[in-house]
């Protein structure tokens, strides 16, 4: 799972804006792969049951009875993800905020938080199914955990990394606690919090499919994939995998656009 912090994420160069040369260069590799894939399956280089030709895969979600399940699956997965993601960022954000603004809470919670975070997320599954069964609750809690950890971590870190110069100004002006929180601490941590939300979303999506795949029962892209594998329908498996990538990409793009609009005019340009 993605588990990076603010500084790592900020170190990445900013993505180029708009579909320019980078877009076409980016699309070259997938395009070449599709050509090779098509050639390999049509020329009989690979068993066509293992590698279904691309045009058949493209039609599966529309023409095939089992394939059409995909649409309900996507809907179910996205709704499930949104539920878990929302709970996760709210709870994680609150926890991060608490650790970030209160030394007392930080001393009390941070060590346990760090310890629990070391547990690989998928190791939670047996515990969660024991507590909540194999139904919706266990899945949503799992997704919330996937989203909540990076959210808490980044919020905490963002609040901890507030420049001492700003803290001194706040002390000199003797700002009230409320003003300190709303006008200084949170705005200053906002870029880190935004990165936390972004990572939380990616994690929530991975967590959704993981939960569906591992906890069976019910609709979803994960279940769709598991079903395809059971029945040895490689076309369905390939559609499922491509769907995962596509939905993840779309969610991330939407989120970035949303975050960019929410950020105050000068939020990113500190000097």
């Amino acid at each position, binding site marked *: 799972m993605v588990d990076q912090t603010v500084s790592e994420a900020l170190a990445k160069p900013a993505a180029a804006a708009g579909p320019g040369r980078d877009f076409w260069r980016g699309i070259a590799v997938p395009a070449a792969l599709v050509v090779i894939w098509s050639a390999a399956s049509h020329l009989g280089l690979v068993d066509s049951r293992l590698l279904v030709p691309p045009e058949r895969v493209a039609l599966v979600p529309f023409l095939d009875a089992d394939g059409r399940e995909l649409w309900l699956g996507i809907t179910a997965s996205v709704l499930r993800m949104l539920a878990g993601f929302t709970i996760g960022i709210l709870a994680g954000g609150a926890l991060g905020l608490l650790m970030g603004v209160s030394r007392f809470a930080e001393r009390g919670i941070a060590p346990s938080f760090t310890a629990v975070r070391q547990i690989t997320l998928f190791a939670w599954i047996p515990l969660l199914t024991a507590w909540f069964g194999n139904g919706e609750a266990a899945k949503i809690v799992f997704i919330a955990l996937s989203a909540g950890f990076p959210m808490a971590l980044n919020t905490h870190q963002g609040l901890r990394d507030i420049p001492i*110069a*700003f803290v*001194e*100004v706040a*002390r*000199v*002006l*003797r*700002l*009230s606690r409320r*003003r300190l929180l709303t*006008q*200084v601490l949170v*705005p*200053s941590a*906002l870029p880190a919090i935004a990165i936390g939300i972004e990572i939380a979303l990616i994690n929530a999506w991975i967590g959704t499919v993981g939960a569906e795949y591992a906890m069976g029962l019910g609709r979803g892209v994960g279940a769709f994939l598991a079903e395809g594998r059971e029945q040895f329908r490689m076309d369905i498996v390939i559609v499922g995998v491509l769907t995962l990538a596509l939905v993840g990409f779309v969610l991330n793009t939407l989120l970035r656009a949303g975050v960019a609009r929410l950020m*105050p*005019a*000068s*939020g990113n*340009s*500190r*000097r």
Partner: protein
Amino acid sequence: MLAETSLDIRTVSKTYQVNDQALDVLRNIDFTVEPGEFVSIVGASGCGKSTLLRLIIGLDTEYHGDILLDGRRIDGPGADRSIVFQEHRLFPWLTVEQNVALGLDASDAPVAIRGQSVAEHIDLVRLAGFEKAYPHQLSGGMAQRAAIARALVNRPKILLLDEPLGALDSLTRAYLQDELLRIWRQQSVTVLMVTHDVEEAVYLSDKIVVMEPRPGRIAGIVPIDLDHQRERAAAGFIAHKERVLHLLNH
């Protein structure tokens, strides 16, 4: 309104613990800033000027000796003092107006009056029209003026300035020196300013405290008995400058 608050710095010493070693930063600093005075501190970098301002503003209360405001020992930040740092330290996510308004957060002035106070002080530093601008949209000089407005909006008795013009080009500097004088007279506030520019100190001050480093001590105090229309090329001006420079490089 006349500023009546005097600032007494009595045998103040300050030691920092650095790697288990005691670092003497200030030793026996002793001087008084009279009500309404404009006092400058000059000295080599590292001689403890910023440290002294941090003690006076109340960001650091661990020191020996006494810093007295009207006879009362300073034990933390208070409404009677404010500071402008070398960097403007405006909050980048707030507009000029919002930044200045933060200076009133701790005041008990009614909300109705606050907006007017903020507007007056933005006017005072000649930033009218830039109320809604963000700090990154301002030049260095304008940002520093906004910081001065934030420091003055709650009507402190003492304004501390830590090399406020240090990062500006010389034209902007000269202009803001005159602006500082105007603001000082208009607000009748007591000013204690740190600068490394001796000419600036002679141009603005009633009195210059000259410091020497390692540990930070007072090398001498030079009263500037020139009238208030000062000519930088005048013989009296140059004589005062020489005295300060002599103390600095004795």
